[in-house]
């Protein structure tokens, strides 16, 4: 860190002497917090943060602008637009978030800034899912799909290849994660659902849905096919061509028999399918289940035998920052540290996502909220979401229990397969069938 800072000093000492001096002073640990001189120089800086609807929102942006001495401009983009923008115009972005299904696109591209572990304040308090590649009890987790440890570290500062073992360079700062499973309408499904195989049970023909896509929907289908004894895989998160062919063939037969009601593209569609009763059993994201419930419709989200499908979202900075204005880079690091310092984590935790630094946000949440969302305890009062809507009454317990009850049995992670090219091609055949 100090080395970087002093480099900045020599490079920029002529132009922005004051700011660089302050930066170097901060780097040496002489001054903590924001020296006035630094705040003066940084107040004209605007950081552009692009992300998904889950990670960018006006409430958090407002708080960030209140807490920090520079301006944060958040932009919400759909994933395709976001990744395209990062790949083609990385210089228009400072901070971006993305998840497992996109991690495969950043290797050997040189568009992301390697984040020095030493510059991220909360690394020591980050859950071992990211830091060690294990559960907190030290047990390893499933490596099928894009597991967190597969894309957490750069091999070196060149930021070209991912390392499976910890290094000093982070690909991104882990923000949120969760485990997805099947959403069930208990009023319309007559028996308890305990396995992914129910997705392909003829009892629910015409009443099931999957996410439309090769990074989430296909892994879900694969887990269900394996559970139903229709397929076996080496690695469901990274199939061979032969496995892809067989999987698509089975799915085409099922589609022709009218087994699938729909394939949803976004959150709203999955909520609509479940709330309207078009679908009684489908793969869902956690906040979609809570959204169905806030409409007064019972919807279960239970742990299944084969485990859940895990995912995470990283926040990263763009490579142009390392070669550009040192002050801007400092502001970006300050902002990324801010994002895991409390407010943001509390905000999304109350929507059902997990923070990568639960110990940091615990003191900032009410005991009732933390107990309900993280500890599997019955709510002692109404559970209210960040928008002010009542989600649960006192006495309610979160489906699946505590953080590690829910997150501790991941069967597969959201993915981007090596054979993506072939899989997309075969998925086209499936859609056309």
């Amino acid at each position, binding site marked *: 860190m100090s080395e970087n800072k002093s480099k900045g000093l020599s490079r920029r000492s002529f132009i922005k002497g004051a700011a660089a001096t302050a930066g170097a002073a901060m780097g040496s640990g002489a001054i903590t917090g924001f020296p006035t001189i630094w705040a003066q120089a940084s107040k004209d800086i605007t950081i552009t943060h692009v992300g998904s609807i889950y990670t960018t929102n006006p409430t958090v942006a407002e708080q960030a602008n209140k807490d920090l001495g520079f301006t944060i401009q958040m932009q919400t983009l759909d994933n*395709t637009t976001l990744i395209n923008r990062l790949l083609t115009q990385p210089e228009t972005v400072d901070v971006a978030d993305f998840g497992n299904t996109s991690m495969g*696109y950043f290797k050997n591209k040189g568009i992301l800034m390697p984040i020095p572990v030493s510059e991220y304040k909360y690394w020591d308090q980050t859950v071992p899912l990211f830091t060690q590649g294990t559960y907190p009890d030290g047990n390893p987790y499933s490596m099928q799909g894009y597991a967190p440890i597969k894309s957490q570290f750069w091999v070196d500062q060149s930021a070209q290849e991912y390392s499976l073992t910890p290094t000093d360079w982070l690909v991104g700062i882990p923000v949120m994660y969760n485990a997805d499973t099947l959403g069930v309408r208990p009023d319309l499904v007559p028996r308890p659902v305990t396995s992914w195989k129910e997705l392909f049970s003829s009892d629910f023909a015409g009443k099931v849905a999957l996410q439309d896509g090769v990074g989430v929907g296909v892994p879900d289908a694969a887990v269900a096919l394996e559970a139903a004894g229709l397929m076996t895989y080496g690695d469901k998160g990274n199939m061979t061509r032969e496995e892809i062919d067989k999987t698509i063939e089975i799915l085409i037969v099922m589609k022709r028999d009218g087994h*699938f009601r729909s394939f949803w593209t976004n959150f709203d569609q999955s909520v*609509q399918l479940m709330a*309207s009763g*078009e679908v009684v059993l489908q793969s869902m994201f956690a906040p979609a289940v809570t959204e169905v419930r806030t409409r007064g419709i019972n919807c279960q989200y239970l742990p299944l035998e084969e485990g859940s499908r895990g995912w995470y979202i990283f926040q990263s900075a763009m490579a142009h920052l390392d070669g550009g204005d040192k002050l801007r880079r400092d502001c970006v690091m300050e902002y990324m540290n801010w994002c895991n310092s409390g407010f943001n984590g509390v905000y999304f935790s109350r929507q059902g996502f997990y923070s990568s630094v639960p110990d940091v946000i615990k003191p900032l949440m009410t005991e009732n909220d933390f107990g309900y969302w993280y500890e599997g305890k019955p709510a002692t009062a109404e559970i209210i979401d960040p928008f002010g809507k009542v989600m649960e009454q006192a006495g309610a317990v979160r489906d699946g229990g505590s953080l590690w009850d829910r997150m501790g049995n991941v069967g597969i992670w959201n993915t981007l397969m090596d054979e993506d090219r072939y899989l997309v091609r075969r998925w*086209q055949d499936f859609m056309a069938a």
Partner: protein
Amino acid sequence: MMSPRAASWLQATPFAIIMTGLVIVPLAMIFAVSFMDYGFAEIIPEFYLGNWTDIFRSDLAVATYATVLRQAFIVWGVTLLLGFTIAYYLIYHVRSNFWRAIFLAACAIPFWTSGPIRMISWVPLLGREGLVNQALTGLNLIDEPISWLLYSEFSVIVVYINMLTMAMVGPIANSMAKISPAVVQAARDQGATEWQVITEVIIPLIKPGIAVGTIFIVTAVMGDGFLVRAMSGNQVNTPAVAIMNEINAFQFPPAAAKSVVLLVVVMAFVGVLLRLVDIRKELAR
């Protein structure tokens, strides 16, 4: 004084620049990219024919074009029938211009809300628990809800018809309004029935209007991917959807090849239609 020749060149220049910069150059780039290889969200600038051989050797292109042509044909037929009927009523049965304007505006009511809301609002109507199924069950016409009303090719076509009928009504009504009442009156005076007036006088005279409406409908159906995906629950693939799927996977070269093919097909269709019907007559009057 500038020569007339130089003046013509000068007059054509702004449009030529726009066409070259915004149409021809991007198209040339798309064409070039279609001959390149690709990796994870990257175009590899090496000559690669696979994107093209896949189109001409696989069943996918046949399947997607069969689907979209079938949809376009059905939508065209229904919107033509509806469009002609509505236009005929507006022009020959509604006497006052005031009411004509009101009725035409009423046709646009479905477009007062946004596209996504319009699409979502089909679920409570056509869904398994929807109004149509409830009505049919209530009338004891069916025992079990019909599921093909929604998330099927049927719902895709219904929504196309809902969205595109106006595109047929407009040009046909425009053509009809230009027919001199004297011509229709002359036919009546000669003893022509209403049916004969329609088939032998009106239809031949509104052909340019029908051609314009047809171009609107066919290009809209061929080029759309969003509506198909939403209304079929991602279970119907068309050439435009196939392109979207590849763009979403950041696989640009095959998407480029498919785009070129789609462009050629649509342009060929429009070209043939313009040879059959002279729409310049329609624009000139």
